[in-house]
């Protein structure tokens, strides 16, 4: 892992460097070739390849029977995917904007997440729900939310947040092969992010955090695009002589508490970053879990940086205030290290 990680996200020129969108498309294509039960359903997924063009070319290879344009019925086609998953298929549901997950919550939370447990293990729902997340694209309050915390709170669901093309491809392949409902959150501000992705096939196991950068002075735990923000901040902190370790849990459920806690014990100072709203969000669980495991090693309380507790505004100068950026992270890290 670590070598691959090192070359990540800026792959050595010799390596194969592709975008996040391409990595996701490759994962889908490879799994659809590998398993005829895998199919894609969502809005404008076929010819259009989604508004983000992530699925471009898939309908040409796999046909409209396996890349299915659905009506604007998030609850309906998610429910259909649950039934298909229970009866032998492996649906990959495309939710164009994560904000629309609000329309399919019953299907995801009351049906997919619980059917294995409620049936005493007799039915299972191997379904992957791909949804976008993330702000800063001037899409305003109903197209910019990062709602992954909701799903991490529901037993029966697994939750994945890739931060690099390499992770996105390996984790998506694992998600499609998993026998449980998996929420796979893609940051729409990262689709064109480039990174090293080997030509050879690989998968990445769930529940294994990845140390994106090693450091001794403080630990920055970050998810999705916030990992890139953390890495940028880490470079600037290095110039100030502060060596930050950047840890990416990669999957919120299952969560690799061990790796997070070990890093916290090593550095004694922890900053947690996530693009969801800060209150009652992912940063709270990560901070609590780390504090539980490393309390006696911490020099200071874990510092949390999530999105502001405000709906995402459209106005660019306001929107840019709402999510953590390298400046904010550097400032918080300096304060945490008594260098404010």
């Amino acid at each position, binding site marked *: 892992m670590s070598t691959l990680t090192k070359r990540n996200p800026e792959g050595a020129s010799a390596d194969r460097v592709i975008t996040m969108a391409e990595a996701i498309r490759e994962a889908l294509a490879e799994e659809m070739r590998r398993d005829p039960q895998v*199919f894609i359903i969502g809005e404008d997924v076929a010819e259009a390849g989604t508004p983000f063009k992530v699925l471009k070319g898939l309908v040409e290879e796999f046909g409209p*029977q396996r890349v299915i344009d*659905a*009506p604007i*019925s998030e*609850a*309906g*086609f*998610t*429910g*259909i*995917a*649950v*039934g*298909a*998953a*229970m*009866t*032998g*298929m492996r649906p990959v549901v495309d939710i164009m904007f994560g904000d629309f997950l609000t329309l399919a919550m*019953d*299907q995801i939370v*009351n*049906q997919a997440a619980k*059917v*294995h*447990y*409620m*049936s*005493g*293990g*007799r*039915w*299972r729902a*191997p379904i992957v729900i791909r949804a976008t997340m993330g702000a800063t694209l001037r899409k305003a309050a109903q197209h910019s939310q990062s709602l992954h915390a909701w799903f991490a709170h529901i*037993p*029966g669901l*697994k939750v994945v947040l890739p931060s690099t093309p390499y992770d996105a491809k390996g984790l998506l392949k694992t998600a499609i092969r998993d*026998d*449980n409902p998996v929420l796979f959150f893609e940051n729409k501000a990262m689709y064109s992010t480039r990174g090293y992705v080997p030509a050879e096939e690989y998968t990445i196991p769930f529940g294994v955090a990845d140390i994106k950068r090693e450091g001794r002075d403080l630990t920055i735990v970050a998810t999705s695009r916030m990992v890139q923000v953390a890495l940028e901040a880490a470079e600037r902190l290095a110039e100030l002589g502060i060596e930050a370790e950047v840890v990416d849990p990669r999957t919120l459920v299952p969560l690799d508490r061990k790796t997070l806690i070990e890093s916290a014990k090593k550095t004694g100072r922890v900053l947690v970053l996530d693009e969801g709203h800060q209150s009652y969000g992912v940063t709270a669980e990560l901070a609590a879990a780390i504090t539980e495991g490393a309390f006696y090693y911490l020099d200071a309380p874990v510092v949390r940086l999530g999105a502001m507790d405000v709906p995402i505004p459209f106005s660019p100068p306001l929107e840019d205030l709402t999510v953590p950026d390298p400046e904010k992270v550097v400032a918080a890290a300096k304060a945490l290290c008594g260098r404010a």
Partner: protein
Amino acid sequence: MMPSPGLEMRAERHHAMAVDGEQWLHMYRQMLRIRRFEEQVNELYMSAKMPGLAHLYIGQEAVAVGVCEALRRDDYITSTHRGHGHCLAKGASMDRMFAELLGKAPGYNRGKGGSMHIADPDTGNLGANAIVAGAVGIATGAAFSAKMRGTDQVAVCFFGEGALGQGVLYEVMNMASLWKLPVIYVCENNLYTEYTPYQEVLAGEILDRPRAFGIHAEAVDGQDVRAVYFAARRLVERARAGEGPAFLLCQTYRYYGHHVGDIDRSYYRPREEEEFWKKERDPIRLLGTWLLQERLADERILEAIAREVQAEVEAALAFALNAPYPIPDEVAQHVYADKAEP
């Protein structure tokens, strides 16, 4: 539109040929099994032997039995909060049903589901559901999958008329129609959604709704198991032949309360109404009378069936009462499926 009774008759006649007395007797037995099973469930509640509540299906037996008799074991059904009848009609056994209702380990679902969540892959039962219309997506998805996998399985989606209030039903009917899925939506109109007469919460004509989505729809007398069976058989054959989805509206009535605890019902429906349905429209008595008239059975045979069913109920109940609860460790099992199990 709904065919006039006359037409209905003619349409069915040649079908009738294909049904022998044994099969009618089997349906009689099935309805009686549901009736006696649930009378026992009510007793368990009244004697505080059953945890939680249960929604009794008594009075509606002809719908579950008539429809499920038209299905193969490998066809799918989804059920509702009022699901015991559907589960039994699709082939569930009483002992594991009782065990599930009591939260016991040998229950169909290790006692984890209970009355509102009985599911059984062996009989194609995708599960009862405690969310009104919560299974319409699952049933439509099972039909979608059958079509994709190239099997000729059919999926039946049972729901009460109250489910017509849930938007997701229209979302999936639209897709079932677009993609010609082998799914049959069986709407059991028992006149009440909980404690509210259905007309107070439903505008327009029920059959116009599926038709607006291009889905073939018909109504049938839900107390007449033969009518339900013939209609279901036609629609199932149609779906199996790739001719697409259908909607079957069954006019029926529940004898007991919305759930076993709903004793005083006078504020939402008149006693006389209940009496009328029990006396004049009972599905079991209607079939029994017909069997005698047609000389397909005599009193002796029907009494024998009654005795056998009673014995089955008693044995099943004893099994469940003596069964163990799941061990504490099971609470954390089955949250996630791993490739290993089951």
